[in-house]
């Protein structure tokens, strides 16, 4: 091994980070070369100087800053006393997967304006229930008075009340397996006259 290459490996040799073959080669060179022995001693002394540095000690203020969240929780628990402990027993802290849901904005409104949220929910329920109720009432009515009369009633109404929905009338009539106005009922199995 030449002098230049050995010089480049010395630093890793000091740290015992060379392969076995490299280590042997450097050791052989060190026996021959006084300059490299000197450089090696210097490197080792420099490394030992750094390794001997005492660790820098952070002040108490530093610990308070990075342990802040833990300390706050500890003091909060201590000050809450028995009431806090009872509450913690009855309502344990939310599980991890709920915490992300709780971060969404909407439950915040529920907390601040419960009345508003309740009214909104009721209106939504009423709007979705209205057609169901009305449809049922109309179907009962149609079967009660008979198909032709029901459709006739509504056909008359349409002239005076243009807002009545024809499609809706048709739907109710079809649903109840009624024959639409204008068609006479055909007896079953009498398709060929």
């Amino acid at each position, binding site marked *: 091994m030449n002098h230049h290459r050995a010089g480049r490996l010395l*630093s890793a040799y000091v740290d015992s980070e060379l392969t076995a073959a490299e280590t042997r080669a450097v050791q052989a060179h060190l026996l021959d070369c006084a300059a490299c022995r000197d450089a090696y001693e*210097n490197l080792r002394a*420099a490394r030992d100087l*750094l390794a001997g540095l005492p660790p*820098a000690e952070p002040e108490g203020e530093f610990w308070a800053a*990075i342990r802040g*969240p833990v300390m706050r929780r500890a003091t909060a628990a201590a000050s809450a006393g028995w009431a806090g402990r009872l509450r913690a027993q009855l309502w344990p802290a939310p599980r991890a997967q709920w915490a992300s849901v709780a971060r969404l904005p909407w439950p915040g409104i529920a907390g601040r304006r419960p009345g508003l949220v309740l009214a909104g929910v009721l209106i939504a329920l009423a709007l979705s229930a209205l057609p169901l109720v009305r449809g049922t009432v109309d179907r009962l009515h149609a079967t009660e008075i008979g198909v032709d009369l029901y459709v006739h009633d509504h056909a008359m109404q349409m002239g005076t009340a243009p807002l009545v929905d024809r499609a809706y009338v048709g739907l109710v009539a079809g649903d109840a397996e009624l024959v639409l106005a204008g068609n006479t009922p055909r007896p079953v199995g009498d398709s060929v006259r």
Partner: protein
Amino acid sequence: MSETAAALALMAPPEAVKAPAYTAEELARYDGIVQRYARHVYNIAYRMTGNEADARDLSQEAFLRVYRALRRVEPGAPLESWLYRIVSNLYIDLLRRRPKARVESLDAPIDTPRGELTREFPDVAANPEAVFEREHIDGAIQQALGVLSPDLRMVVVLSDIEGFAYEEIAAILRVPLGTVKSRLHRARQVLQVRLRPYVAARRRGWQV
């Protein structure tokens, strides 16, 4: 509050990134991480920045990130690489935000309107006893570290001061093993020259 702390606060105001409410076990886990790594993180930060205020700000920012990411950290997973890489990256950020803080050669004469001045250093020969006091040698080593470029300094701090193996350093800094070797080689060449009297004394068997 120092300039760094203010800059860090601007970068990530604590109110904006609220950490989720942690359970007692999670807080205990965070506390465990603090107990285990805080001294090392602070020590590395201190040797990199060379002053307490910056070291404190860097370490605090690093642990703030740990705190925010606590749920993503597997319990018991070794955090060394991740944490020390954060410190390294935070330090590089710090240098970027402070372009004025440049490394000056201590030997170079300073230009003043009244001519050139050279810095005066305590003469080793004049008071040989005082030079080898603990504080003095700490200061001298810190000064020598400050002369190195941040890349070289980080490798030296991780290897010689924190005692990591080359492979671990390569993993922390995400550089090839050969780069760790060559950086350490170059760094030690510089340090040896800067610390010549101490190196010589050490070779004669002197210990603090």
